[in-house]
């Protein structure tokens, strides 16, 4: 579980090559399921789709493209960028202008190809900014991208011709020109457009990891000097990777512009760049499908948890920090660590330890959530006039009892969890050692 990022990335790719058929059917099923999902929530009485679900799924698609493109830098090239939203946002702004031009009749393009134009715009900006950023690596690279991000975000408020200032720019997506004769008046049609482009972009990025460029990006990440000695210019690799990553982020931004019809400076600002870091890292930067998991999870939390809790961003932050500390390979890394165990048919041995682990884990989680929620209801909730209701009964946050229960759960659960983690680690080591022996 705590395998260093660099070592877990390479076997993952090899395993994927070794058994393509066995791994790929899961993704095939997932795509089909996503395509059918809106119809399961179709309201036959009103003849409408669930708007909440469609918005969430569309958002997921964009965020998957965005975080996958971010992972081209973070996971695959080892470059930490803090300004990735620049390409997403600029792709979005460009698409708005393309849409307006199409409506005015000066750009005869079907709507289906607008994300491609956004991608080209992203590529253009990626080339310009990549020329600057690719000169450096590591912390200097992170600082340059942060500087560029702040520059563009500030410029987006300042200049009105292109960015529209604080109000942003808007356009109408119904340009009445389509490859398939679709009008894109309802959000289900837009959803299928997003699904198709998400698939295309994800496959494109997967293909890029298999090209010499993708492999050399991994090489410069793992051993910068050796890659140089082999005759490759790391700067050029960084530059190409950066520009292409900008292109895919631009596609995501183009879909954003088409879906919402308005792009404001939020699309280029620092919080979205930070989101890219969170999604990619939580999902797992070292494995190709990690960002897909991360983007899905964060979007789910964003649309589900944010309705329930004022403090949901705290949970995301804590999740991120615990991932950085305990599972640097992310969710995908955790799944990947179980692959050899499952292939050897030893998952059964882990069931009981996992159940033992989950009881104190759940208690600790409940205690923590309880404390955060209690304090949130003490401050924000009070100002909003809300009261905390749990299992149908009101809870008074000014009494000591709920606080004592939460603290007790956190402390006792935490202590028990530490103990269980130790015994779990023993069993885990035993199982993996056993596997190694059998393979030798």
């Amino acid at each position, binding site marked *: 579980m705590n395998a*260093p*990022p660099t070592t877990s990335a390479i076997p993952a790719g090899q395993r994927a090559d070794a058994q393509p058929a066995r791994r790929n059917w899961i993704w095939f099923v997932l795509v089909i399921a996503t395509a059918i999902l809106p119809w399961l929530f179709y309201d036959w009485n009103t003849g409408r789709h669930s708007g909440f679900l469609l918005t969430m799924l569309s958002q997921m698609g964009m965020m998957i493209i965005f975080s996958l493109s971010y992972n081209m830098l973070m996971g695959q090239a*080892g470059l*930490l960028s803090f300004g990735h939203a620049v390409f997403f946002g600029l792709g979005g702004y460009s698409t708005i202008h393309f849409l307006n031009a199409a409506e005015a009749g000066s750009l005869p393009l079907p709507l289906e190809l607008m994300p491609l134009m956004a991608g080209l715009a992203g590529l253009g900006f990626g080339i310009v900014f990549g020329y*600057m950023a690719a*000169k*450096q690596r*590591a*912390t*200097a690279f*992170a*600082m*340059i991208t*942060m*500087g*560029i991000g*702040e*520059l563009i975000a*500030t*410029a987006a408020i*300042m*200049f*009105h*011709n*292109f960015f529209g200032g604080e109000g942003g720019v808007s356009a109408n997506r119904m340009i009445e020109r389509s490859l398939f004769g679709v009008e894109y008046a309802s959000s289900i049609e837009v959803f299928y457009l997003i699904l198709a482009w998400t698939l295309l972009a994800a496959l494109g990025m997967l293909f890029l990891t298999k090209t010499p460029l993708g492999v050399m990006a991994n090489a410069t990440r793992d051993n910068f000097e050796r890659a140089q000695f082999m005759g490759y210019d790391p700067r050029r690799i960084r530059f190409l990777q950066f520009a292409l990553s900008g292109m895919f982020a631009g596609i995501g931004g183009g879909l954003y512009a088409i879906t919402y019809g308005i792009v404001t400076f939020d699309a280029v600002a*620092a919080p979205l760049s*930070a989101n890219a*870091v*969170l999604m990619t*890292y939580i999902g797992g930067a070292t494995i190709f499908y990690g960002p897909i998991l991360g983007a899905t999870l964060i979007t789910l939390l964003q649309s589900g948890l944010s309705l329930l809790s*004022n*403090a949901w*961003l*705290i949970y*995301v*932050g*804590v999740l*991120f*920090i615990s991932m*950085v*500390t305990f599972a*640097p390979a992310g969710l995908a890394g955790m799944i990947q660590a179980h692959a050899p165990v499952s292939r050897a048919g030893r998952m059964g041995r882990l069931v009981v330890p996992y159940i033992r682990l989950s009881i104190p884990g759940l208690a600790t989680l409940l205690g923590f959530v309880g404390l*955060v929620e209690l*304090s*949130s209801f003490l*401050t*924000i909730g009070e*100002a909003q006039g809300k009261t905390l209701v749990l299992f149908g009964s009101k809870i008074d946050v000014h009494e000591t009892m709920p606080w004592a229960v939460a603290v007790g759960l956190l402390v006792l659960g935490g202590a028990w969890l530490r103990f269980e983690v130790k015994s779990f680690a023993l069993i885990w080591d035993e199982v993996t050692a056993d596997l190694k022996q059998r393979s030798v």
Partner: protein
Amino acid sequence: MEIVLISLLNGFVYGMLLFMLASGLTLIFSMMGVLNFAHAGIYMIGAYVAFEVSRMVGFWPALIIAPLVCAAIGAAIEVWGLRRTHHNGHIAELLFTFGLFFIIERGVQMVWGMLPVPYRVPTALDFPLFNLYGINFPAYRGFMLLIAGGMLLSIWLLLTRTRIGLIIQASLTHPNMVSSLGHNVPRVFTMVFAGGCFLAGLAGVIGGNYQVTEPSMAAALGPIVFVVVVFGGLGSLAGCFIASIIVGMLQTFAVVVDFSLSDLLGGLGDWIGTKNLLGEILAVPVSRIGPLLPYAMMVLMLLFRPRGLMGTRDT
């Protein structure tokens, strides 16, 4: 003339505030290689704690209590957080502080709300110190200069005149050698981290009522402090000081300059007009470009001189 003098003073005050934040950050960055994203968050905590303490017992105790609280938080972060992520490399440490900043920001929003809190200048210091061409210079700014100057002097004395200061200085350039000589480098790290957070907290106490104490104050100041650290160069407190003053001056002077590039170009500017993007860029007065300048400075510096103004090694 009076505008120049007033701006010079204000820029100096702002620069000193930046230096209080940046000095701790640059020490941490140079020694541990960790760019502490949570540093501005600590500054914000300092301001909010000072607000609470000054409401309960007054401003003067807050001046000592809030920085101490921040130092304790800093030490805790180093011992229980950073040390555990250390074996995963610098990127993991950086991401850890990044996540921490996220939590601090949301936590402050949760506890104190989204709106600014009424953290005000103490009445004992709320009078004009002197009058310059009809404009009052508040005594509180003088007090800020006094605190910042005192801090500058004590850091300098600590680093050059004491044993621990010499070890810190050596760890800045040769951490492995210092460790080989038998010094407890991790403990030095903890001390420097706590010290840096102490300074950030102190900056929060005196900066919180100079500016506005609100949840976005950290996100607004954080990137500027990074600019100062990168611009000044790694491992150089002198460079950090110069960069702080430059950025402080730039930001205050940019506000009062009402030129735009098209004014300089004269007739050419009129010919381009303001309807296109180029014309619009040229027509924006310097006073509005002000917020852009530090970032442009940082990007240019990293492109052409990655070690910064007086740095000893590349960022």
